[in-house]
């Protein structure tokens, strides 16, 4: 395979990256939701897997076995902690327009410049070697392909390819990572490329894994057992006791911290996050990604060992050497592209993250504090100045990485450099975790903790490295500096049991944490710190922004703020931003010389912070406005007030929901009242109507008798008999109405006793025996053997029975059946007859008052029409139910229930 093929494929791949980035940039203008998806977010987090994963893991697996996997277990643990930790950091960063970890830490500790500088410097020193490592991975992989054709390595190609790749990456990063001046704006082109590269590296690595495991060998079991047969690699199958466990656990802790604090992870995970809710899907998608990319590491490593033995091929190169050995050039090229994408993705994002820190926390604060706020200069220069600084920072970072690689990093192993970087960024853990969970943590604590941590990091990791490379005398590692043995960098204070990384991590992180806590406890916080500590720990949401009084006192003119903003984002956009803010918060910003309130000042500072970093924004604000100092007790007051406002708001919301609940209840009660009023009217109308019918006939009949004194006695007797009957009916009706009224008003008293139901039913039935005989009906009474006793008012229940049996007798044709039976927790008394029955549509109304009267289809009203209504009231008063239905043999069945005391 010619080298030119490799170069052409590489160039085509670069061209594809540029095409994807510019396509995504263009598309995102019209389709804003293009990249706002949890899968996109999860895949972009895959930037965690670098050339180290791709080449280094296999190398490590082939030399020390399974411990390569520990640095992927840390991020998986973090995935479970996304909500308490990462979600909080994202929310704070969005609210305050924070664009880097340096900004995050310096703002948390009262916008402290020194902290921002310290974090930025530590990142640059700690991470540049890591970027160099990726350059090394790309160049090495190219060399492996080059050597497949040429027998001797050519140093020129190493140099040329390294420089060429650096230049292309600088160009790309500037083009798509430093496009606009607002760093809080997302970079869709960049994200599209990172997602694309994440997919490519995963697919390429899985393809190689399948190729090796199932193509060259016969599955994983086959590879493992063949290695086991050789018996020289037994140590790969287990962890060594003792030292390996410490190393394993420290790598888990390191990778957990690195996942949050590496500049590229913070940039992708926090700054480029489009929606914090994507964390939910990402929290399982990302671990799946990690698992997949690690699935075939061990088989590939062992496959390499089987193919090459302990030959002269470096384990770090197995990934490429295997397909080349098989002369499968397509597979080799695919693998190479995958490895290149892993390395370039890391370099691009890491460089952007670092360049933001360098420009916002190192260059710009120095620039603005020395020259002052340039009022007179034309607007455009500020914007282009910021961009220029950002772009120069990118070039600076990449050149530094290139120089490191060319002059120092050639001989280091991939994994070791990576772990040094991990250990450096782990020093941010106490200040960051403390910052979001512990209000008392202050800038002195953070500063001293991180300083101590970095000094120990440098002493225990970098000094030994320099000694190994001959820059320092090797004696320092055996005898200690100046012969002091307890200061030997790798055995600090005589701690000998740990490997070098665990040793460094243990001393740096514990002393860092202890310093942070102890110093924080014994020093006081400044007023700014008190305010931001409360804000970070409570993670105030953006929509609660108006509720919070900000701490700022002084005089500032709207026009000054607008000018300041204009010089960084352009006049048009500044006006737009300001007006949008004014509308949101009900502030007047149109008057030329109006004084700005605290919110507007804070808003301007936040927006500026998004562009040039919080530290520089602070300096500019101090210059553009007249600030007064705020005493600490005032800040405490303001925080108290904010807390109270939030509490009052919560209380108000609660009250208002209660109120609406109450008014709903009131409405329902009112509706009920209106309905019952209407019922009352109807009742009154029906009653009077019912009373008038017998009254009319009484009057008519008595008038006839009165007007005709000469009527014969027989006829007179007939008329008077009718009058008496009508009068009886009238008085019956009146007594029924009175009784019903008693029930309705609740004045009806029950006089319950223990009643034998069997006896009661028999008594009532026997009172009908004459009538039943005369109508030639049969009466079946079905009663349980053991007579049930029920606690009820005997007279009233008797009345119900009389009423219903009476009705049955009235309508029945042949048979009446009375039945008493137990139904779960109550006694059920049913009376059925084979009469004309009740229409199914009226079944539910039959117990209403005067149902009969209102239903004039019935030819002649029989009874008052109140009987069943009274029955219903009585049964309900006893806690039972009453209803009518039709049985299977087409009988009408009235049923009522009485609660059983025993159950």
């Amino acid at each position, binding site marked *: 395979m010619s080298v030119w093929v490799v170069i052409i494929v590489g160039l085509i791949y670069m061209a594809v990256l540029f095409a994807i980035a510019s396509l995504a940039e263009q598309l995102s203008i019209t389709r804003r939701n293009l990249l706002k998806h949890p899968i996109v977010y999860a895949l972009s987090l895959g930037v965690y897997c670098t050339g180290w994963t791709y080449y280094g893991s296999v190398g490590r697996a082939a030399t020390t076995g399974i411990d390569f996997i520990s640095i992927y277990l840390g991020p998986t643990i973090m995935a479970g902690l996304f909500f308490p930790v990462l979600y909080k950091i994202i929310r704070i960063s969005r609210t305050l327009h924070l664009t880097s970890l340096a900004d995050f830490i310096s703002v948390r500790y009262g916008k402290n410049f020194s902290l921002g500088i310290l974090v930025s410097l530590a990142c640059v020193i700690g991470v540049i070697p890591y970027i160099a490592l990726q350059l090394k991975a790309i160049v090495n992989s190219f060399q492996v392909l080059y050597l497949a054709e040429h027998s001797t390595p050519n140093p020129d190609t190493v140099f040329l390819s390294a420089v060429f790749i650096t230049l292309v990456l600088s160009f790309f990063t500037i083009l798509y990572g430093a496009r606009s001046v607002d760093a809080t704006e997302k970079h869709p082109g960049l994200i599209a490329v990172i997602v694309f590269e994440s997919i490519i590296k995963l697919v390429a690595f899985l393809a190689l894994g399948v190729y090796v495991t199932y193509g060259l060998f016969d599955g994983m079991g086959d590879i493992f057992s063949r290695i086991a047969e050789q018996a020289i690699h037994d140590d790969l199958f287990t962890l060594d006791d003792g030292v390996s466990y410490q190393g394993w656990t420290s790598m888990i802790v390191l990778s957990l911290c690195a996942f949050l604090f590496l500049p590229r992870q913070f940039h992708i995970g926090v700054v480029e996050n489009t929606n914090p809710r994507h964390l939910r899907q990402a929290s399982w998608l990302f671990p799946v990604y990690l*698992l997949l990319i690690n699935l075939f590491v061990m088989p590939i490593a062992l496959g390499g060992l089987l193919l090459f033995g302990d030959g002269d091929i470096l384990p770090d190169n197995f990934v490429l050497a295997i397909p080349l050995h098989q002369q499968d050039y397509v597979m080799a090229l695919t693998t190479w592209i995958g490895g290149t994408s892993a390395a370039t993705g890391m370099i691009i994002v890491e460089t952007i993250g670092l360049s933001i820190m360098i420009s916002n926390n190192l260059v710009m604060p120095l620039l603005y504090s020395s020259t002052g706020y340039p009022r007179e200069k034309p607007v455009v220069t500020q914007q282009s100045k910021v961009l220029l600084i950002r772009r120069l920072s990118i070039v600076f970072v990449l050149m530094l990485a290139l120089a490191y690689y060319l002059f120092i990093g050639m001989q280091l192993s991939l994994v070791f450099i990576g772990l040094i970087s991990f250990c450096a960024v782990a020093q941010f853990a106490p200040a960051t975790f403390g910052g979001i969970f512990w209000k008392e943590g202050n800038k002195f604590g953070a500063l001293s903790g991180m300083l101590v941590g970095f000094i120990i990091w440098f002493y225990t990791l970098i000094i030994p490295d320099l000694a190994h490379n001959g820059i320092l005398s090797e004696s320092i590692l055996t005898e200690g500096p100046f012969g002091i043995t307890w200061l030997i960098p790798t055995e600090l204070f005589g701690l000998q049991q740990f490997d070098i990384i665990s040793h460094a991590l243990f001393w740096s992180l514990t002393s860092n944490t202890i310093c942070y806590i102890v110093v924080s406890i014994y020093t006081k916080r400044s007023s700014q710190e008190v305010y931001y500590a409360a804000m970070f720990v409570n993670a105030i949401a953006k929509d609660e922004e108006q509720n919070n009084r900000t701490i700022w006192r002084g005089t500032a003119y709207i026009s000054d703020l607008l000018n300041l903003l204009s010089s960084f984002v352009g006049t048009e956009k500044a006006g737009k931003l300001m007006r949008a803010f004014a509308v949101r918060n009900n502030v007047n910003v149109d008057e030329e010389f109006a004084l700005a309130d605290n919110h507007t000042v804070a808003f301007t500072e936040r927006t500026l912070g998004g562009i040039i970093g919080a530290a520089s924004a602070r300096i500019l604000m101090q210059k553009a406005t007249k600030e007064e100092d705020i005493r600490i007790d005032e800040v405490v007051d303001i925080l108290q007030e904010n807390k109270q406002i939030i509490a009052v708001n919560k209380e108000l919301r609660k009250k208002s929901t209660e109120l609406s609940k109450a008014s709903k209840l009131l409405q329902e009660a009112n509706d009920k009242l209106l309905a019952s009023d209407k019922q009352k009217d109807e009742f009154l109308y029906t009653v009077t109507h019912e009373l008038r019918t017998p009254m009319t006939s009484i009057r008519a009949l008595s008038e006839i008798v009165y007007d005709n004194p000469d009527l014969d006695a027989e006829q007179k007797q007939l008329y008077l008999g009718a009058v008496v009957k009508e009068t009886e009916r009238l008085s019956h009706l009146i007594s029924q109405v009175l009784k019903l009224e008693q029930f309705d008003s609740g004045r009806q008293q029950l006089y319950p006793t223990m009643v034998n139901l069997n006896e009661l039913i028999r008594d009532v039935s026997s009172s009908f025996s004459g009538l039943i005989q005369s109508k030639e009906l049969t009466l079946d009474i079905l009663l349980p053997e053991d007579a049930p006793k029920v606690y009820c008012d005997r007279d009233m229940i008797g009345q119900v029975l009389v009423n219903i049996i009476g009705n049955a007798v009235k309508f029945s044709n042949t048979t009446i059946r009375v039945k008493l039976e137990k139904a779960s927790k109550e006694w059920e008394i049913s009376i059925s007859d084979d009469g004309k029955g009740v229409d199914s549509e009226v079944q539910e109304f039959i117990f209403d008052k005067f149902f009969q009267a209102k239903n004039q289809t019935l030819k002649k009203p029989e009874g008052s029409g109140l009987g069943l209504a009274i029955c219903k009231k009585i049964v309900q008063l006893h806690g039972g139910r009453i209803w009518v239905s039709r049985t299977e043999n087409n009988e009408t069945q009235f049923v009522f229930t009485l609660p059983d005391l025993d159950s």
Partner: protein
Amino acid sequence: MNPSSRQAKAILSSVLFFGAVSYPVLSIVNKKISVAGIPVIYVYVFAVWILMIIALIALNFNRSNRKK
């Protein structure tokens, strides 16, 4: 599931996972035994890893919550 109980469960699964892949639990499987030809520690770490992922899916893959 309300957010705070989901959060507590997620934290718990992280803690359990950390415990499961650390000393001394890890030393139980750190032996020269093979399962279907594959070293037991290798099988164990991947199995625990998959369990953790399943737990995270169970906690976060929920359509009704996603709409919120």
